[in-house]
């Protein structure tokens, strides 16, 4: 496994929203997308994805529809709702602020204090 990072609590939702924002995906697709865009660095347990998807759908951030997959099987596709898009923007912004702040803190050298 080597270079893989543990997922911070609460970040799974953000990752799902982000990957779905690029186009409708079925559950397995979400998994592939996360792995693809993180370059395989982020590891999630596959089953944990579904409660998260259900929760986001019930919160109205995702909507779902049954469709056909690439290999012609019936699959449930998730896509971002308007509320979901707004939430993604907010979460992204707040994540960036947090990451920047923590980065800043961690880069601080002794003489700067």
């Amino acid at each position, binding site marked *: 496994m080597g270079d893989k990072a543990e997922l911070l609590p609460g970040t799974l939702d953000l990752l799902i929203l982000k990957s779905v924002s690029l186009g409708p995906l*079925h559950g*397995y697709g979400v*998994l592939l997308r996360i792995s693809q865009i993180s370059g395989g660095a982020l590891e999630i347990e*596959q089953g*944990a994805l*579904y409660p998260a998807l*259900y929760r986001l759908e*019930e919160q109205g951030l995702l909507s779902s529809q049954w469709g056909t997959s690439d*290999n012609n099987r019936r699959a*449930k596709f998730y896509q971002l709702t308007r509320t979901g898009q707004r939430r993604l923007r907010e979460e992204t912004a707040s994540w960036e602020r947090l990451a920047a702040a923590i980065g800043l803190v961690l880069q601080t050298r002794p003489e700067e204090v």
Partner: protein
Amino acid sequence: MLPKPRFFLDRLLHRYRLDADMNEEIEFHIGQRAQELTRRGLEPEEALRRARLEFGAMERYKERCRETRRFHLLHDFLSDLRYGVRTLRNAPGFAIVAVLTLALGIGTNSAIFSLVHSVLLKALPVADPAKLHVVNWSRDQKWNWPESLQMDNYGWGGRTGNGRYVDNSFSLDVFHDFRTHAKSFSEVFGFGYPADVNADGAMVNAQLVSGNFFSALGVQPAAGRLFIDKDDLLQSDPVAVISYEFWRDHFSSDAKIVGHKLLVNTHPLTIIGVAPQGFFGVHPRTSVDVYAPLHMEAELNTMGEPAPKPGEPAYCLRPNLWWVEVMGRLAPGVKPEQAQAELNGLMLQQLAILGIKNVDPARGPRVEVHPGRRGLDELKEDFSQPLLVLSCIVGLVLLIACGNVANLLLVRGTTRTREIAVRLSLGARRARIVRQLLTESLLLAGMGAALGLVFAVWTSRLLLTLLAPPQVGYVLSAHVDGVVIAFTALVAIITSAVFGVVPAFRSGQVELTSALKSSGSATLAPREAKLSKALVISQVSLSILLLVGAGLFVRTLNNLRNTNLGFDRSNLLLFGLDPTLSGYHGQKLRSLLDEITAQLQLVPGVRSVAFAHVTPISDNMSGGDVGGDLPGHANDEAEAMYNVVGTDYFQTMRMKLLAGRNFGPQDTLSSTPVAVISKRLAGKLFGKESPIGHTLHKDVHVAKYKRDLQIIGVVADAKYADVKSDVNTYFLPYAQAQEVLLRGPSFVVRTRIDPHAVVAGVRRAVAQVDPQLPIRDLRTQVEQIDLSLSQEILFADLTSTFGALALALACVGLYGTMAYSVSRRTREIGIRVALGADRQSLRAMVLREGLLVVAIGIVIGIPAAIGLSRLVASLLWGVRPIDVQTLIAAPLLMMLVAIVAIAVPTHRATRVDPMLALRCE
């Protein structure tokens, strides 16, 4: 609490599909992953295994998905509820009409159910009532006790379905054998039949009970202590336990009641304790106020037996006096049949002691053990049929109410088409909207049920007094308790489904584009209009059922009230006395009756006065088999009722003497015993011959009461115990009667004026003779007759009330449907007017449409009414179940009221302005 029904519905409608969807989704995931792994070179089977492994704890994840849903459903439900409250607040008129209609429908059902629950279903308020059993014995009708035994039986008897005769009393010896030897019962306890006594000047019910009565029932005292076995011995100190209610009402819950000497008849009993609140004994029909130990009968003599000769045992101890009723608690694991066999053996041993051996089990006495969780349940027989009929009636009313609310919802659904279309276009699922509309129905039904409960509390009290007026002597109670509330909630849920489902699904099927384009006016689409008419048709036919029922019951009551009784019921005041309870016996008793009669005759407004053993239509009958002495017919027998009467009885009652003479001063204790017989009995025993001078053999089968009487007169037939049956009667003069027949004499007072006006004078007259003598059952003859007809009055009152209610509801429905039909056709009517149609033909057109609906309802309702009225045939009197008059009157009334209901929409149709109508769409 609230979401439960919703989850239930959900489970029915959605749960299965949701789970299937989730499984399919996860299987797809695993399939994709396995495919990927196969591409990387794994064997397909191994790939599948790995894919499942990587997925993780599948069942746990599935459960977490379900939880998300469930939480969400609750959330949805609450928000639907909030939304529902908001929309109803915006349509207060609709909400008020719907809630009131439902409250009426649900409330009447709750009220009747509270009666059914307490009168027919609720167990005795004792510990573990399910274990209680009643012990009876039965015999073939032809089996008789040997005459030499001089048996006396104080139990309640009756015929059972299998033709055997059931009796519920045993001798003290048999009871003691049961108690000491029966292993199949963990407890056996006994008691006498509740008797009227005078306790500290109040007339109350007293019951003699065995020492273990309270402990066997598992009842705890409210004060002091209850009986133990040592209280129930012949030599024990005389003690009593009183009911909580008697303690509260008569002694103001005096804390120092224990030790008080209660004067029961003429015997002082020391009160040792108070039974718990709500405990009424084991006869649900009678509330017992004073309990005394079984062996106190030797002193109290509630059965009024003659005192034993010196040296002889007390009457109640005799083996040939069967008077103890028996109940018990089955031992764990014992079946009733086993207990029955054991007790039967014990009873047969006692019968052998009495000289009755080799009893044939098919014909002779045999013990029966029956479930006794409700005690000695006489109520069931009396009330199960009336309550069943009432339940059906209120069920019909609720259905009609549902029809109205469904109609309102249909119409409202059309006004909400645009709202629903907008929500659909914003992405709401149709199922979600249907759910929301159903929640609104549930909300309406819930509010209706809450209001209905308030209504039920009030109505059930009213119904109780109608069902069993306080004067009849039994206490019925009904409370709105947890069970009734649960019933109401269930009815509300079912109701909301009945009236809500169809309109909700109809509204869910809104056509998006046309709905958004339309003006949103309140018109019904053709399919809704048809549905609405179908609803009104069913309401009309249900109303016809109720109206026909009302007609039959009202006619029954009228027939009963106006039937010829054979005596003059007007201006008659009745009351009873119990002088023997105050110590009047023998000559003293006879002179007391004469003195009171004389005093009463002096009361202004009184025409004449007489007294008798019983008064007519008091459901208080005594009788037996009698025979005549006509040559060749000497063995003919007839069942006859008797009455013991004072001298002026026939004149006072205005019963015509048809032949012979009345009783007179020449009939004394020492002269020949005489009788006056009714015309019917004369015909039965003597045919066309005059019975005067012939002999009447009284009580030919009961050695103790057997006597020969000389017939001196024939009197016209009169109704006796009730107004329904014609019976044979014979009369004995009080001067010759045994004292036991004079114990509770009733006076009949014929007045010149309204009998109520002489009540005070009558009370004063009695008090003048003995101020300590309590008067009981003071009422007019007409009131007494109505009391005996309380069930018929209840039916007539309730069915006509509910019939009127149904009629009103159906007509409100009809009005609504027609009004919408007219507004839907405004354009068509406008065109007709523009083309020159006159108002007369327009009016006829609308009227025709409305009356067609009513006519269809009637055509369906009448055969249904004919079919159903057969079920109540046994409750009718003087009316055949298929009563042409009623079957004509009910639809006619329906039609007339319908025309009034249609009049307004008809009028509106004729007012249509063609220009406006053509522009309006």
